[in-house]
């Protein structure tokens, strides 16, 4: 009789189709009792496409034979390269301050989704192989574990149930950021050949084709022309979306989803109308046709740097004076917080705008200087609330002010609408909940997890819907938009109630044909 090898990694990581269970909406976020292994079955699909894996320089034949040595070598490398990872391995006291802060824990009840427990998956291996006590006593002290196939499967499962949203790091008395640990863990998993399909298909496309959707240049030009026709039909005005235009004042980069996904495209209308009405020459680029940077999702510095390079190169090649970027969460974190380190300052730009600007900063400035005007009554059918996107809220600033990332989007919304209301204070600003699909978890294979991860945000929204009849959730992130427009119908709300802030601008901006101004 053939014995089934229980430890075969392919069995442990087998993807199963699971019907999404939608949590009940009560308007309250309560901390659940833990339920062991509740989300063990939510696994991301693995990338098996050999040519993509080869292009990424990753093992292309599944788990590598001597995976344990490779794993520990990579982990040692992470501990030498990232002070965050090294320090966070050592200083956690397991106080539990973070334990009830993760949307995936609140949604799934699985204790391994508590930030500290997720981190402990790495710490248990760290203690075994990288500390004195581990070398002396092995795993006998009870706080360390051997590295085996089961541990490997737990890593792959739970480090792909973290959206690196950094909410836990707000509450940690030592600032331990699970995102840093998850990023290192994913890089280690990649090195032994466990590569997540959704993220790395996209990284491959972004590196080699130039955008996450894998749109070749002609397709981009076509869809831009289509948008221009749409705009003409809507407004009766020729609103151009210039592309690859050398010498324009502004290079505009945005997530490629904005080219045709819904509701993203509504914001593209908004961007175009703002530039048109302000009379600022601008251009998009087929070479830098993506703002998003999935290289951020693991600690692979060069991956992020290669993707970021396109924006830098395009700005130089098109001889622009400013770089402005659209609505995208992690794009903004990478462009504002990391790009300067990776490629240096944009020091050939107009020195009044020496770094990339966010479309919210840019638009609000134009309103304040009177360059564009908005008619709030155009949005009188809407009562709006705002979801702070995690990477903007907890990984950047706007407008050179410490809390600009909270105030500027809200100020811009207030310019667009008469009725704005914030959700509960524990669910916004620095304490904002992730949409439930960030940092590589937006694939359809992860839908059951996404539905549960969205629960805290949906409860907070339900509350303002009941009390203030909110009917529009404003967002400034392409992933949030894709997630929310998919999740809303499952929770019983129409997907049209989701959209970008620039969609609100698009609806309310006062357009005129320029008459010899």
């Amino acid at each position: 009789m053939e014995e089934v090898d229980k430890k075969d990694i392919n069995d442990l990581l087998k993807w199963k189709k699971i019907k999404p269970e939608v949590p009940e909406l009560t308007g309250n976020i309560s901390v659940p009792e833990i339920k062991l292994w509740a989300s063990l079955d939510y696994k991301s699909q693995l990338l098996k496409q050999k040519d993509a894996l080869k292009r990424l320089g990753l093992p292309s034949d599944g788990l590598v034979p001597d995976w344990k040595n490779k794993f520990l070598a990579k982990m040692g490398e992470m501990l030498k390269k990232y002070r965050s990872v090294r320090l966070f391995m050592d200083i956690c006291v397991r106080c539990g301050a973070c334990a009830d802060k993760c949307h995936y824990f609140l949604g799934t009840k699985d204790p391994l989704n508590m930030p500290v427990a997720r981190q402990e998956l790495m710490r248990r291996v760290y203690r075994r192989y990288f500390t004195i006590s581990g070398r002396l006593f092995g795993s006998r002290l009870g706080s360390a574990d051997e590295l085996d196939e089961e541990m490997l499967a737990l890593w792959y499962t739970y480090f792909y149930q973290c959206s690196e949203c950094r909410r836990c790091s707000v509450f940690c008395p030592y600032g331990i950021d699970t995102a840093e640990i998850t990023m290192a863990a994913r890089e280690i998993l990649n090195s032994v050949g466990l590569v997540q399909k959704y993220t790395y298909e996209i990284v491959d496309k972004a590196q080699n084709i130039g955008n996450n959707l894998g749109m070749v240049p002609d397709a981009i030009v076509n869809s831009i022309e289509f948008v221009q026709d749409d705009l003409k039909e809507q407004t009766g005005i020729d609103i151009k979306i210039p592309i690859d235009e050398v010498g324009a004042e502004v290079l505009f980069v945005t997530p490629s989803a904005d080219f045709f996904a819904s509701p993203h495209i509504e914001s593209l209308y908004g961007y175009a109308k703002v530039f048109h009405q302000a009379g600022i020459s601008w251009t998009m680029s087929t070479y830098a046709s993506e703002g998003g940077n999935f290289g951020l999702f693991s600690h692979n510095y060069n991956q992020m740097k290669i993707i970021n390079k396109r924006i830098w190169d395009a700005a130089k090649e098109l001889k622009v004076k400013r770089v402005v970027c659209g609505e995208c969460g992690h794009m903004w974190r990478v462009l504002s917080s990391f790009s300067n380190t990776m490629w240096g300052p944009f020091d050939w730009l107009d020195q009044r705008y020496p770094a990339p600007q966010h479309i919210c900063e840019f638009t609000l400035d134009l309103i304040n200087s009177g360059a564009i005007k908005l008619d709030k009554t155009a949005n009188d059918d809407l009562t709006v609330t705002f979801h702070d996107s995690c990477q903007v809220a907890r990984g950047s600033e706007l407008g050179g002010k410490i809390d600009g990332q909270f105030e500027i989007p809200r100020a811009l919304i207030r310019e667009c609408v008469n009725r704005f209301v914030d959700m509960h204070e524990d669910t916004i600003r620095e304490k904002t909940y992730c949409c439930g699909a960030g940092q590589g978890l937006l694939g359809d294979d992860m839908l059951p997890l996404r539905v549960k991860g969205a629960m805290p945000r949906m409860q907070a929204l339900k509350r303002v819907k009941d009390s203030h009849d909110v009917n529009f959730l404003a967002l400034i992130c392409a992933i949030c938009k894709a997630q929310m427009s998919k999740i809303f119908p499952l929770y019983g709300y129409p997907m049209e109630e989701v959209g970008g802030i620039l969609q609100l601008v698009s609806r309310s901006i006062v357009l005129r044909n320029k008459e010899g101004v």
Partner: protein
Amino acid sequence: MNISGHALNMAIYFSALLFFAGISFRIAGWLSVPNPLKIPTTPAPLTPAGTVARMLGELLFFRSLWKADKLLWAVGYIFHLSLLLVVLRHLRYFLYPVPESILRFSDIGIYAGFTLAASLLYLLARRLIIDRVAYISNVMDYFYLLLIILISMTGLLMKFFFRPNLIEIKDLMLHAAALDPIAMSAGMSIFFLVHLSMVMLLAALFPFGKLMHAGGVLISPTRAMVNNARRSRHINPWAEKEWDTMLSEADKETGAYMPWSPEQWRDRWKR
């Protein structure tokens, strides 16, 4: 030399050495690892002065913990403050004469002994009672708690019930602190010996476990970094080497590691 009489002194010096050398070694180890990117958890101050203020808020008021859990904050704060007061009171065994400023805190140190024990018992209870905290607690978490509880209990017992010969103890400790050790006399209080042994064990283990959070919080990159990446360039010391290594492996045929320049990319996509 009376070896058995000096065994205690040797243990004191050994644990003190482990404590100070261990802490320096650990902190030097952390500092030897670079921060490749600026990763403050925002909203974070945009200036170094603001960041110092933020760190003081963490260090003196446990600001992040305040946001997380008010009860845990209160008990944690009472614990750390009590510990500080108790340690200050104990300076009388190491300093002669005792500075006036420290003597002023001495009486309150007695009450702190009680709040120290009480807060520790709560911290232990919540590890057993709250299901989330029970799940994440490991052997060492309980070990350190029990060790400090034992230290505080023997201390209180000596203060109120089994008073040891303080003159002898002070003589012994002052000499040890002055690096002029004298042999321990026979018949030393057993409570004192247990108390001191546990403290030495704690000091010796301190650098090698989670108690090092005390040193780590000051250099935690999500707290200690200034949020000015947009204006002032942060340098990643290993970036250049890693990029060059990658370029040497880049392959235009497969596209592996290939940072396509605009010209190469156009050639590829006929744009």
